[in-house]
């Protein structure tokens, strides 16, 4: 366990010193503050616009960070052959994978926190002072964070057996269709053919169902924000357990692949 944490800590430190990270965060913050200007243009709906654009920025830039760093996670160690040194130490291969994953989760946590503070500042600047708005933002951001944890696990899985470019493509593709998982299920049910129905249901259960986490700009958060009512905790809990289960499966798969690998 301590070895996993040691690896995680080193991964975090490595990420923090990477310039890509700062560029992405900077872009996200610029996006959030741009939403202020756009908000001014839409009379009466400022808070909704800022929230929509702000949460979308956190989600998209978080996804980019997760994909870029997540794919580099294993690939860089293989490419630069640092893995030779590490695995010759008393480190089991699953400890390596888990350590890397946790390190990136921690990096993401810090990044999401920074972006969230940016968003809260934008709201404050807009004149929004109700505490409940600030507090209710947190479950929404937490849901985004869960979706990022899932994307990271996917990126990690691909990078254990594929090239970075392909891994990025696969992960991005899954991220996109993951948001339409439920639509696919409906589509299958509408179709007359039992076969198509089955295929769609099959895909629905295999691909990450990111729509579970998609509450940004959607009814949940806006309602809870505008009515100053906390969000339904069961939605968050369900998403949390879904994320936990999905990540566990994906990470187990990554470890299984990694265990069989030859490091040439």
């Amino acid at each position, binding site marked *: 366990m301590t070895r996993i944490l040691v690896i995680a800590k080193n991964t975090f430190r490595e990420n923090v010193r990477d310039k890509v990270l700062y560029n992405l965060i900077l872009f996200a913050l610029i996006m959030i503050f741009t939403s202020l200007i756009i908000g001014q243009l839409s009379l009466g709906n400022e808070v909704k616009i800022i929230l929509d654009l702000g949460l979308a920025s956190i989600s998209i830039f978080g996804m980019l960070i997760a994909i870029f760093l997540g794919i580099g996670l294993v690939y860089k160690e293989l490419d630069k052959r640092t893995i030779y040194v590490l*695995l010759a130490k008393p480190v089991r291969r699953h400890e390596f994978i888990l350590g890397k994953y946790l390190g990136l989760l921690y990096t993401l946590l810090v990044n999401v926190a920074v972006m969230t503070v940016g968003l809260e500042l934008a709201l404050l600047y807009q004149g929004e002072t109700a505490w409940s708005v600030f507090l209710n933002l947190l479950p929404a951001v937490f849901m985004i964070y869960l979706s990022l944890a899932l994307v990271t696990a996917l990126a990690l899985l691909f990078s254990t057996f594929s090239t970075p470019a392909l891994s990025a493509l696969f992960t991005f593709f899954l991220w996109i269709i993951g948001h339409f998982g439920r639509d696919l299920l409906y589509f299958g049910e509408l179709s007359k053919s039992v076969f198509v129905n089955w295929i769609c249901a099959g895909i629905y259960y295999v691909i990450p169902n990111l729509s579970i986490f998609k509450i940004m700009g959607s009814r949940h958060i806006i309602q809870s924000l505008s009515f100053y009512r906390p969000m339904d905790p069961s939605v968050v809990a369900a998403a949390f357990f879904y994320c936990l289960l999905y990540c566990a499966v994906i990470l187990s798969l990554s470890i299984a692949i990694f265990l069989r690998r030859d490091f040439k």
Partner: protein
Amino acid sequence: MPVIEIENLTKDFLVGFWKKRPVRALDNVSLQVEQGEIFGFLGPNGAGKSTTLKILMHLLHPTSGATRILGDPVDSVGMRRRIGFLPENPYFYDYLTPEELLTYIGRLFGIRQPVLSQKVRTLLETVGLADARSVQLRKFSKGMVQRIGIAQAIINDPEIVFLDEPMSGLDPLGRMEVRRIITALKAAGVTVFFSSHILPDVEALCDRVAILNKGKLQEVGVLEDILKVRIEGHEVILAGWSDETLKTIRRSCEEVRTMGDRLHVRIGSREQMEPVLKYVFEERLELISMNPIRPSLEEYFFQELKR
């Protein structure tokens, strides 16, 4: 008791994009390394040295054969606490400093503070990187990276160290330092297993060597024994000679050279040796040295492996 055991080790790599075909990198290699010796693992490029080391480090799965280190199978984590490894052309995290890297590695071994920082400091001294302790590794030269690689390999006071071409990329001074480190390790009872093609280093350091070529083990044994089989005569160096001496010796030996006030005589056979030595003692010439002429490892490589 052997500390490294390799039995009938074979490794095939699958190459080719569509139709994979196996290429044999190691072919039925068996050898044992005893506790406390410096063991040289020699062979030309592509012989299979790194492949063997990677299998021993559990980075590659062998096609067949068995390997054990300190009596344990190579996937044992407990055993890996007791060994060190320097990969070929190592590379470390760009954004870490030597101090941070060694601290990181030390933590993986469960070494705690304040012992750890003390240890890191002495190690950096040992490998001559004390001045560069807080420079990021991406700014390091090849030789500096090699040095930090050696430091990380011995941070846990290992019982065996595996070094894949430890001298590569080092300047003459650096090579001398690495030689010194290796001898110091041996003095401390550590077994050293290293691959190399820098033959003078091997000749200076190794108790025993194995010579590998195209995946097959050619020889294992004491270097002297491998080379002595082919003794090609003796070289005698004399001082205090005169023109008279030169004339007399030339009668029995064909190869006589003068170098300053020294006379180098090459004696090809036993029959030539007796008259020359007799003359030397009778005339009370100064005998500086007398050495068997054996091929250097380089010559051996050329003769044996070219075939």
